[in-house]
């Protein structure tokens, strides 16, 4: 059955783990991957008599998130969210309820669509359970092991308005949000480590009709599963409606392997969280001076950085936009800007940064990158050679690109040698040369290939084309 005649309505709740040195309410290390239960103390174990003390740096990161999402940053309060769960040591979670730190913002997608942000509030993370036994879930487990290292790690939950209309758009929102969170230094953005956890509220309706009954989907561990899960869930709901059935409001679990959602708990089983103000903490009222200081230190956000690059390239075609998005997403825009300011053509710097640089392998220094691009632009290095030089610079970032080129044997061909070689190639391939002369430009690639082969890659493709054009007359 198709989705025809239906509109999908999506709101996302994104939990972002803050990249602080210590936890939200105690001095324990906030780190992923340490041996279980090594970063714990009376506070994050919820031992009797322990008390929470708010981590100021976590508040600062939360405020940065609020500012980046155009929220109003307000005096706020912590509440207790009460429910029993073994990996939650106090059997309540300290969270924000009706007075969140950040309220009422927006996020603009790269295509210009604006998604409303309801709120971005602070809360503490729980520990992590591992259930031994066949089910892999708490029910039916033979034993459960709990690691409290994550207990008390600071989180900001970013709640969007139900403004998204497709899985693709939800994915774009999550990607842009991730870029913003990383840009403000709030998180490392590692979805696979749980640094960002996404829940999706999905409903379907006929356009113009009131919202349908929504289901919340959990366990979305990648942007890809987010999109897939939403698309699956929307189709499931449409199928139910088309079959004359009703949608039950419930929480559903995304099964990545099976590619489907399944019931976790229904609305009837929903907890009564008995929220009330956390008496162990005082109201959180950020001082004006501090807020101003944070606002003044806000970094440029991805949207602004993309615009800066587009302006630099003087282009706004889709191909350039795609390259720009890649470069900003990988934080490579400073290299492109430096190369451009040093005189290299922006478009070439952009293309090389997007396609040849890989931070995990290592990045060239700014000057080395700029010089390499400049050498290619001037024809001293061919594209192939420039790429090879960048490959070496990954591990020797500050080396002189010209020295690297020499080391690789990329000595520039003398003009004489080039011209002689081209002449020989044309002579050996008269038929192709005739067709080229008659206007079949595609054959330029053929001749470049031949010249490259004859010169073992040392020729500059642009110089070859220039000579071909000159000879054609």
């Amino acid at each position, binding site marked *: 059955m198709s989705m025809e005649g239906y509109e999908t309505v999506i709101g996302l709740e994104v939990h972002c783990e803050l990249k602080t040195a210590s936890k939200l309410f105690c001095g324990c290390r906030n780190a992923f991957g340490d041996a279980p239960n090594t970063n714990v103390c009376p506070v994050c174990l*919820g031992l*009797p*008599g322990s008390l929470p*003390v708010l981590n100021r740096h976590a508040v600062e990161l939360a405020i940065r998130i609020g500012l980046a999402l155009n929220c109003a940053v307000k005096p706020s309060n912590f509440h207790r969210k009460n429910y029993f769960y073994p990996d939650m040591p106090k059997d*309540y979670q300290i969270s924000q309820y009706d007075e969140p730190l950040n309220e009422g913002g927006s996020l603009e997608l790269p295509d210009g669509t604006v998604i409303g942000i309801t709120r971005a509030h602070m809360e503490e993370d729980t520990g992590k359970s591992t259930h031994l036994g066949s089910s892999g879930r*708490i029910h039916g487990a033979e034993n459960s092991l709990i690691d409290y290292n994550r207990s008390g790690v600071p989180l900001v939950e970013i709640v969007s308005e139900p403004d998204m209309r497709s899985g693709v758009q939800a994915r774009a929102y999550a990607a842009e949000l991730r870029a913003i969170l990383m840009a403000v230094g709030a998180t490392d953005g590692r979805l696979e480590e749980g640094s960002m956890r996404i829940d999706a509220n999905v409903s379907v309706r006929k356009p113009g009709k009131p919202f349908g009954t929504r289901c919340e989907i959990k366990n979305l561990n990648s942007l890809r599963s987010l999109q897939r899960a939403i698309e699956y869930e929307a189709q499931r709901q449409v199928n139910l409606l088309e079959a004359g059935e009703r949608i039950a409001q419930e929480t559903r679990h995304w099964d990545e392997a099976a590619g489907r959602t399944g019931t976790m708990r229904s609305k009837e089983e929903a907890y009564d969280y*008995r929220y*009330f103000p956390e008496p*162990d903490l005082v109201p959180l009222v950020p001082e004006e001076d501090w807020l101003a200081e944070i606002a003044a230190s806000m970094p440029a956000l991805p949207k602004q950085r993309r615009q800066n690059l587009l302006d630099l390239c003087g282009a706004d075609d889709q191909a350039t936009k795609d390259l720009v998005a890649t470069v900003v997403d990988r934080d490579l825009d400073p290299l492109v800007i430096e190369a451009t300011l040093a005189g290299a053509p922006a478009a070439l710097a952009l293309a090389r940064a997007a396609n040849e640089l890989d931070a995990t392998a290592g990045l060239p220094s700014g000057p080395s990158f700029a010089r390499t691009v400049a050498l290619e632009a001037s024809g001293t290095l061919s594209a192939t050679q420039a790429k090879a030089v960048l490959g070496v610079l990954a591990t020797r970032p500050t080396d002189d690109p010209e020295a690297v080129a020499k080391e690789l044997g990329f000595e520039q061909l003398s003009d004489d040698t080039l011209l002689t070689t081209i002449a020989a190639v044309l002579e050996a391939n008269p038929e192709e040369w005739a067709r080229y002369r008659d206007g079949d430009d595609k054959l330029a690639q053929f001749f470049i290939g031949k010249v490259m082969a004859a010169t073992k890659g040392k020729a500059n493709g642009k110089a070859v084309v220039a000579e071909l054009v000159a000879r054609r007359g």
Partner: protein
Amino acid sequence: MTTAIELAAAIKRGERSAVSVAEEAFAAISARDGEIHAFLSLGQDHAMEAAARVDAAVAQGAPLGPLAGVPVALKDNMCTKGWETTCASKILEGWKPPYDGTVVERLHAAGAIVVGKTNLDEFAMGSSTENSAFGPTRNPHDLTKVPGGSSGGSAAAVAAGFVPLSFGSDTGGSIRLPAAYCGTVGLKPSYGFISRYGLVAFASSLDQIGPFTTTVADAALSMEVVAGYDPKDATSINEAMPDFTGALSKGVEGLKVGVCADLLDGAAPDVARRVAEAAAVLEAAGATLVEVAVPELKLGLSAYYLLAPAEASSNLARYDGVRFGLREERDDVVAMNTATRTAGFGAEVKRRIMLGTYALSAGYYDAYYGKAQKTRTLILHALDRAYESVDVLLGATTPTTAFGFGDKVADPMSMYLSDLFTIPSNLAGHPAISVPFGTGDDAMPIGVQVLAPGKRDDLCLQVAAVLEAGAPR
């Protein structure tokens, strides 16, 4: 009975050895605590070692803390490192905290010798110490009477002469009521003056640690040692403390004392008579008596019995059998939680957890918890208004003298009424002190209560010193 100040001075001068003082304390406990049952556990080995260290310091002429060599008892809801802390509950039986609470640390630093942990109503919920899972404490003045509660063991330990100084916690009167019943001084300090870090929470917004002593001067000295800002408690007040000891000699000349009928309403005639005599003592010492009506105080009891259970229902959630204390093994986690809590908590604790859970439940929150919070604010404002015309308020600590075992167990409401006069200070976060002032018709001790505005614990001590000097012998 030697006071803490006298003992510390004698030890400092080398007239007494700390070891002999500690030995005497343990001998007295061993002789009489079998019938009184003030203590749940003793720490003789550590105490004797600590006393020997004090003596060594005296011998070397090393600097001594203000309580060097003074035996001290702690209510068994204060965490002591490696020393069983039970809250008089089966659910915590055998639990040894891995840390010392801030008060315990400060007492150690001051040279105090912690001799034992005292009995209480389970989780400090009660007014008679009959709710201890380990049997009641008896009133040293009459073994057929209760010592009051919930800090009954701490009050009895001082009243019996086992120690000159003990600490309890006061959530709705749990220091002042047993102090009155046992004939000791009992101070509930301003909320935030003494760190709650390491105090096992009953109702976090109301709990406050305070001393039991035989003299007002010892209470002032105790405050010098344990009061003051603690970064581990977010509700701790970060301000200079008043001069507690300096207040003792100020007298009451020119002070306006509000004699408050609402702190006498329903008091037995012998109690009311003693309060009138106390007022006369203050007037004779130069104070001006002013009749003050604060009818809102009567509302305190109802508000308290919603707010305190609400917070308790959340604070006591962590006793779930997962991490520490009692665990009743079952096949799944929910059954284990339920069985553990069913077996581990006594009737009064269960009653309050249920009351509090109900008060916070969706649909009832506004009517119960919300309204109680408003009442709390009302009482605070009413007291603020009263303090515009008077410096302190004078009233009874309790409506009657100590009652007999079992007298009120069957009727929780009549037990709750014992806290009528003490609760307003907890709701307001204000200090209040109970001073022994003669006996009743049954020859049992009577306490009169001095209430002061927030952060004016010095005023409580100032007035209490005059009452102490003028008390009937």
